[in-house]
């Protein structure tokens, strides 16, 4: 069974097709880098997979289930553009909130474990409002990994991260992949992404322009896919 299967997905903004007949599959343990220009539909596709909106046509299967099923959502982690933690709450409170929402049995232990994992245990009772940018981003990473999802969806994860946060994220992603979990990320930071990627998909105007395994060639020259399959 594929970890993720996108089958003939169409998505419209009014009458304008933002996604046209997207077909994708990801095996468990693979890492898909979703590339393409701004407005190519990367974010729309990721948000549709994450279940924030329903496709107009076609179907999305995550571990065999639909994105809006409770069982599926328990297995999906999402990092978007925002950090998705509350400024008014402390780091620990934020993580405990999400641990409870995901129905984890020992919310406090799990939250503390992930604070340690991301190097935030020292400031666990500090309000997020008072955190530096890098700390906030690491907390956002901890929030997405907290419930140990089988499928991780990351929208431009390396943009706006500081070096330490990038290091933390890359380490966690490597560990996750080693454990057989699946990662799908949209990105402009080709170098960071291609180091991890096993597959590359390029979107162009809502269509799949390229889909294939990530080759050493691509890692050596990240601009290659754009040069070969992008328009002009």
């Amino acid at each position, binding site marked *: 069974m594929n970890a993720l299967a996108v089958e003939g997905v169409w998505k*419209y903004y*009014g009458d304008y097709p933002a996604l046209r007949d997207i077909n994708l599959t990801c095996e468990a343990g693979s890492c898909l880098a979703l590339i393409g220009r701004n407005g190519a539909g990367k974010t729309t596709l990721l948000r549709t997979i994450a279940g924030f*909106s329903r496709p107009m046509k076609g179907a999305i299967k995550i571990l065999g289930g639909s994105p809006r099923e409770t069982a599926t959502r328990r297995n999906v982690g999402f990092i978007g553009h925002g950090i998705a933690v509350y400024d008014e709450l402390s780091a620990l409170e934020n993580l405990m909130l999400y641990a409870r929402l995901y129905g984890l049995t020992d919310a406090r232990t799990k939250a503390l474990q992930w604070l340690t994992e991301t190097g935030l245990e020292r400031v666990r009772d500090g309000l997020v409002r008072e955190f530096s940018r890098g700390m906030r981003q690491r907390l956002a990473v901890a929030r997405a990994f907290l419930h140990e999802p089988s499928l991780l969806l990351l929208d431009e994860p390396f943009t706006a991260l500081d070096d330490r946060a990038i290091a933390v994220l890359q380490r966690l992603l490597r560990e996750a992949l080693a454990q057989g979990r699946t990662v799908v990320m949209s990105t402009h930071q080709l170098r960071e992404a291609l180091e991890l990627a096993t597959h590359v998909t390029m979107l162009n105007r809502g269509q799949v322009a390229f889909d294939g395994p990530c080759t050493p060639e691509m890692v050596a020259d990240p601009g290659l896919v754009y040069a070969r399959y992008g328009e002009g």
Partner: protein
Amino acid sequence: MREKLLYALGVIAFAILARDIFIIAGFPPEVAQGNAFKIIFFHVPSWVAAGTALTTALLSSILFLVTKNFKYDATAVAATEVGVAFLSVGLATGILWARPIWGVWWVWDARLTSALILWLMYAGYLMLRHAVEEPTQRANFAAVFSILAFIDVPIVYFSIRWWRTQHPAPVFFSSGGSFPPDWSAVMGWNILAMVMLACVLVSVRLQQEQAQREIDSLRRLAHAL
């Protein structure tokens, strides 16, 4: 073809209304209220038209949520706009009539008050639509609002009736009134014409809305290129 049919319908509706104006002008003044009474020939039909349009809006909203077809969203907005326009006509004719008969422009009568609240509610629908940018979200939000608003229609009506019956009724309104059978026939024609007019307006507005949506998507396409 479809457009010609539409315009033909519109012309027929106008012809009926114009003809009826002459017939109504020929009627003798009503016993208690004189000529002012005759505004009822336009007042009642606009309420019927408004009711028809707003019910259409509700059904289209539900259909949109079920099918996600933007055709129904366009119908909903077209019908609501026309409904609000006819509500305005109903309110305006009511006010014009109230001045000579009740001696004031406005009375906090059950029907008038409910009509005003409905008007405000559906004006809110149009404002909400106007403010939401993303087409799918706009259609969803508007449909949800339309359903919530329609639930309120009977509640508003009955609550205001209870409210008014608890207070003394306005004393300056005491007409028995008489309504001869040939007047009823004219009323029937006027209702028909007004509903036809509403249908024509909704269809025209619907075409415009669909054209607008096409333009929007072409603009997005142009931006993407």
